[in-house]
């Protein structure tokens, strides 16, 4: 009985071993498969890493080149469109007052144009363009609070900033002349804020048309 069982068992051993082997094989295969899989994935990773590095260096090269090109761009400050200088003064002409040409006023010690002044000058420019070829004289005036000499220079700048704006608005610069009266010809002889505000002005008149 015992022998019979033993023989049966012994008979089963190879089968058992075979099964074990098969299982191991399967496992091995799985492992191998996994290993292959891993290695495949890994190798794919390796390929993409090197590609990435290549791309990266190409990109930075491009970037460098671009930067070099950028650095080679020349740059300059552009001043406002140049206003042709006055070649002659408006000498010896009889001046005529034109009601349509409004006076513009300035802030204390300033020669830049206020929004109100720009509105007025826009209208003045329209009138001038409609009445070409008319010669216009812009007088720059100051209040009395600066020195005589400084105010000559200030009035000059006021008249010229009006001339420049009219030119920007399309008036013919060659027909617009300036003169600075400094503080020498006040509109209001008073010595107070009200008079001073009136006196800081640019006044326009035209040369009498020649027959």
């Amino acid at each position: 009985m015992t022998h019979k069982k033993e023989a049966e068992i012994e008979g089963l051993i190879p089968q058992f071993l075979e099964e074990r082997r098969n299982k191991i094989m399967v496992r091995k295969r799985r492992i191998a498969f996994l290993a292959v899989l891993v290695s495949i994935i890994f190798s794919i990773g390796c390929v993409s890493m090197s590609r990435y590095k290549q791309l990266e260096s190409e990109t930075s090269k491009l970037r460098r080149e671009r930067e070099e090109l950028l650095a080679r761009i020349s740059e300059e400050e552009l001043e406002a469109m140049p206003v042709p200088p006055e070649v002659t003064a408006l000498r010896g002409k009889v001046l005529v007052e034109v009601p349509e040409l409004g006076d513009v006023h300035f802030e204390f010690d300033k020669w830049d144009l206020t929004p109100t002044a720009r509105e007025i000058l826009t209208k003045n420019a329209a009138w001038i363009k409609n009445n070409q070829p008319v010669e216009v004289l812009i007088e720059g005036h100051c209040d009395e609070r600066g020195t005589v000499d400084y105010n000559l220079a200030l009035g000059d700048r006021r008249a010229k900033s009006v001339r420049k704006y009219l030119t920007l608005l399309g008036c013919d610069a060659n027909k617009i002349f300036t003169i600075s009266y400094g503080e020498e010809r006040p509109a209001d002889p008073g010595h107070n804020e009200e008079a001073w505000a009136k006196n800081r002005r640019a006044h326009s008149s035209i040369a009498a048309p020649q027959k």
Partner: protein
Amino acid sequence: MVKDVILFFMFIISFSGRLALGVSEVYIDVTKPYFKKIVIAVPYPYRDGSFRKDDNLSREMALILANDLRISGLFEVIDNPLLVSAIAESEGSVKVDFNQWRGLGAQVVVKCDYSLVEGKNLTIRCRLYDLLQEEQVLGKGYAGDQNLLRGIIHRLSDEIVLKLTGEKGMAQTKIAFISDVSGQKEVYIIDFDGHNLERLTRNRSIALSPAWSRDGKIIAYTSYHEGNPDLYFMSSDGSHQVAVSTFPGLNATPDWSPDGSRIALTLSRDGNAEIYTFKVDGTDFRRLTRHQSSDWSPSWSPDGEKIAFGSDRTRTPEIYIMNKDGGDVRRLTHEGNYNDSPAWSPKGDLIAFASRQKGLFDIWVIGSDGNNAQRLTSNSGSNENPCWSPDGRYIVFSSTRGGSRDIYIMNSDGSNQRRLTFLGGNNYCPSWSPRESQEAFGNDAQERGGN
């Protein structure tokens, strides 16, 4: 007749005495900041050797002389007739009662004697006595038309100043300025003592910034009468007006170079005000400043090497100095935010200017090295346009302290401020004539006492 001969001899003797003394004997050193004024007695001149209390011409001469001496700022003048007449009357024309004059506190006395020939030819002999040394230190005789009385007395006054200070006085100088008393702005001149007002231009426009040439023969000025602020020259009598700089825009604020060969001025032909110089024949214009800001009011240094000017390159007006070719620009003024109208002193050490504080200008001086700024006017209206006398002892300027804008003078330390113009209207932009111009004034008054 005999008396005349004696006087004449006395005159010769006195003149030789003066020569022997020379001008080395200086009583006051006016270069010292605090000198003591000389006390001088000025009695009425005698007429033909006798004292006449009610003689109008005597009184006028004494007044002119006393006024000249007072304006000089160097003297304390004793001329009260109550004090001086009694002594003058008692001592007579040819003696000096030294004790009596010293008793008044005087240090020197001027004794003059005059005569009128044919009612108009004036002869005047004057002697200056040192009351401590008890001797004559100056003797001068003049002859000329009676109309030249003021000119003669001014000459005498200058000689007295020369004798006592070693430097000639300013009594024969004139001041050019702008006045709108006629309704238009014209160039006028006036004597140092505020007399002899004369109008030089009749252009019925705006004249500005007159500037005497260094020889006193020409006045440069800006006028608008052709429709642009152009620069003109004219003779110092107002004749021969001729345009010399006529660029579009400003041709303004002229100043003569010390050697008289060039003019520095402000031109705005480049888009804003810049400083140029040109030769007085109207050629060789040279641009000195190149700045987006404005530059104006050039004033030469007395050695002709540098030019002070106003500029707002730091936004507010300040005074700068540059070389005569425009190089080496440096800022001179740093205090306050509005400094303008530089005027370089004849000795070169100082620059006078106008500085604005609380809306009003005052006259200041500053060392040409930028140190020691000193205020000369204060609490007296707005004071502008300083200009030096040729000897550097005085500054002429405009001031609104009297209500209207008028011409004033003061000693260069700010003392002795006096009003010169009483015309009404605005009076400003003064310029002091040089001393050399004296030939142009009172040529007819011949000086006697030489040979």
